[in-house]
């Protein structure tokens, strides 16, 4: 959320002058967190694109004789009340959940960039109107928006994407507007204006890139937030239609069995958290790398 991060506290270590590629690799190796996050991200992407590679079991297949079985070798995450394998369901649900998360984050950010830019770069009257719009959207409870959207269009993954996106966009729009305004008022831009550089070029070359760079980590963070939001909607019965193994729906389905079959609740929740952590970590590292690249 801020514009600059100091990598490490002043400790007196001097960076030797090594080729930048080697430096980058050393940095990566020194960060087990990053490695772990990348591995998990790869797993998630694989599960989304080719779930068959991770599991052969049919996520919908009933096995009424083995309902509510605890985790075992045959069923690494256990089974649900109809004997369906939870591991297979989680893997197959990745596409939908990740899709909702990415989709909502992308739509949200796109909306936010448009709104935020207009609210800071357009003519005065337009700026005022769009700023008001952002505030109104902000004041409107996101939950209500989601409820109304689902009531109008019916529960589906697409509805969830738009409900979450519209709900989170104003916050990012505000942030982008602030960033742009800040960049607009910076000494650098002042100097460039004084030197007579054309406004369009200044905006393109200095204002926008600076405004957009922190968006990378925001995008990553919002993936996690979107999935959490989607799971809340599933809790309220507004989730994707069953028997889809979307993670929010899995979490909701495990409610009745928390005491007797806790894996049905614990596992989907954990997976959601892991994805959020992975996305945020990768986003942060990407932002740092970009910033470092600018130097």
């Amino acid at each position, binding site marked *: 959320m801020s514009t600059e991060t100091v990598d490490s506290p002043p400790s007196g270590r001097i960076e030797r002058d090594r080729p930048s590629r080697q430096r980058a690799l050393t940095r990566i190796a020194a960060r087990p967190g990053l490695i772990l996050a990348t591995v998990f991200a790869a797993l998630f992407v694989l599960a989304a694109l080719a779930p068959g590679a991770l599991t052969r079991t049919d996520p919908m297949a009933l096995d009424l004789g083995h309902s509510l079985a605890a985790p075992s070798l045959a069923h690494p995450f256990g089974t649900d009340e109809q004997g369906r394998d939870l591991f297979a369901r989680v893997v197959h649900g990745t596409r939908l959940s990740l899709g909702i998360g990415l989709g909502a984050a992308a739509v949200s950010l796109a909306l936010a960039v448009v709104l935020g830019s207009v609210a800071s770069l357009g003519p005065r009257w337009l700026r005022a109107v769009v700023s008001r719009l952002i505030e109104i959207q902000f004041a409107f409870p996101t939950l209500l928006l989601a409820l109304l959207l689902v009531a109008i269009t019916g529960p589906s993954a697409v509805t969830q994407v738009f409900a979450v996106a519209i709900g989170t966009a104003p916050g990012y729009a505000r942030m982008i507007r602030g960033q742009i305004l800040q960049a607009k008022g910076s000494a650098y831009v002042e100097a460039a204006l004084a030197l007579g550089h054309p406004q369009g070029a200044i905006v393109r070359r200095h204002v926008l890139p600076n405004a957009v760079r922190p968006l990378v980590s925001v995008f990553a963070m919002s993936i996690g937030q979107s999935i959490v939001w989607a799971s809340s909607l599933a809790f309220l019965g507004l989730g994707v239609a069953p028997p889809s193994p979307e993670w929010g729906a899995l979490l909701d389905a495990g409610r009745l069995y928390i005491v*007797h079959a806790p894996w049905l609740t614990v596992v989907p929740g954990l997976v959601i958290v892991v994805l959020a952590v992975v996305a945020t970590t990768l986003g942060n590292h990407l932002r740092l790398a970009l910033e470092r690249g600018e130097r």
Partner: protein
Amino acid sequence: MTVTALAATLSLAACGDDTKDLAAADPAGKTLVYAHQQEPSCVFGGWIEQAYLSYQVLDSLTSLDENGKAVPWLATAWKQSADGLTWTFTLKDGVKFTDGTPVDAKAVVKNFDYWLGGGNSTAKVWLQGYYEKAVATSADTVQIQLSKPYPQFAETVSQGYFGIQSAQALSKRSDEDNCQQPIGSGAFTVQQWNRGQDIVLKRNPNYTSWPANAKVKGPAQIETIDWKFVPDATTRATALKTGEVDAIYDVSSIDVQPLQDAGFTYEKYVTGGRPQALTFNTQEGPFRDENVRKAFAYSLDRKALVEAVGHGVIPFEPNGSVSQATTDYDSTAGTQYGLDVSKAGALLDKAGWTGRDGDGYRTKNGKTLEVVLPYSAGSIINAEGGSILQGVAEQAKGTGFKVKLIPVPPSEAFAGAYTKPSERDIYPGYWTSIGSGILYINWRQSTEKLPNGNNAAFYNSPELEGYILKANSAKDPAVRKQYYSKAQRFIADKALAIGLYDRLSTLAVSPKVADVWQEHSQGGPVFHDAHFTD
């Protein structure tokens, strides 16, 4: 001497366990905390959740015993005229509403008018087509005039929808007041309603009108009921286990055995009427063809599914029109449909669905065999029900049906989504009723003069309606049973509807509390007789 001794012994023996010593349990200070799952908008109304609540504060004319027979409550006696078109109810003497006005025939007539005028649409649905008017022929006699005979009339008015409110309250008070605190003659009164949290019911010390099948012949033995609203099933069960509440409603199947093992009393009431059944749309879509309906039925192993998800607690119901707890239930109807995939396949072949698409679903002339199954998630179909429907969809897939499950949000459901024949293929849903008279509501023909929005199969058959009408008006119970059976078998043989499971009304009660039972017309807790055991 011997005669008096004999008389004395006989009278002692006649006392039995039914009468409790009224002075024994001092109700003062005793509060029973009860966690219900659903909060209605008003205490009295057409919804079953309201009937459960209003039952505590309003008395009805009759009560139902375990055998489904009407026993006296506010009415001490009743009789049918010879032609069956007039019912005369005699009211109990000296009963007063809690606002001081008497429970007399005029008040009862006022209530009938009120229900039919829109005050209770469910009461109206039960009466319309039969009821003409109610007249107070004396201070304590009410005459009901019907257009057609209705032998089960006395049983029908035992339901909570027919709770009697004070006539003065109905005419003089605002809608808001009658919604929040209806005035009745019941064992409890509404003291305070904290919306979203609980409703506090206070004992009526002047209670004189308990039903004939009450265990305690007197006012209630607890001072206060703290009727809490706790929507989450796990929270309810947990609160019961920690002792924060004394009784809970709607126990999920998986909690039943552990609660019983821990010493809690489990009360299970199987609701009568239409069970949770799958009713097929016979007017439009693939289920117009009887073979396709039967193929669907043969694709399912309903029993295994219900028993797995319901942990043996939820009863499997083969009959698609009437549940096993209903009077005049036919136990053979619907049993012919067990899992038989090859038979299902053969029927689909016969119906012309011989092709297969890329996903394995059956096709006919290029069109996939897709059926739409919308259901009211949360309200009418609970979580376990939803799970069972998912199982149905998966099992039907084996034969080649593409079942599209649509959980309908409540706002859409109540706005009337998926009520038209073009919008759905299967309708899942229950309807409580004491006797098989429910068949009339669900299977009567829908005509222009008298549309029937409750005919979920959109099926108009004079033959079926004929059986039902004959049964409704039969004076001889054996004849009645015979015709209701004919109707149920008709529905089963043509696979118009197949049963899944019976709706349950369940309670779990702490060992500290005794004599909480469930009312026999629709289930729901009765707290009038409850008392603490310590």
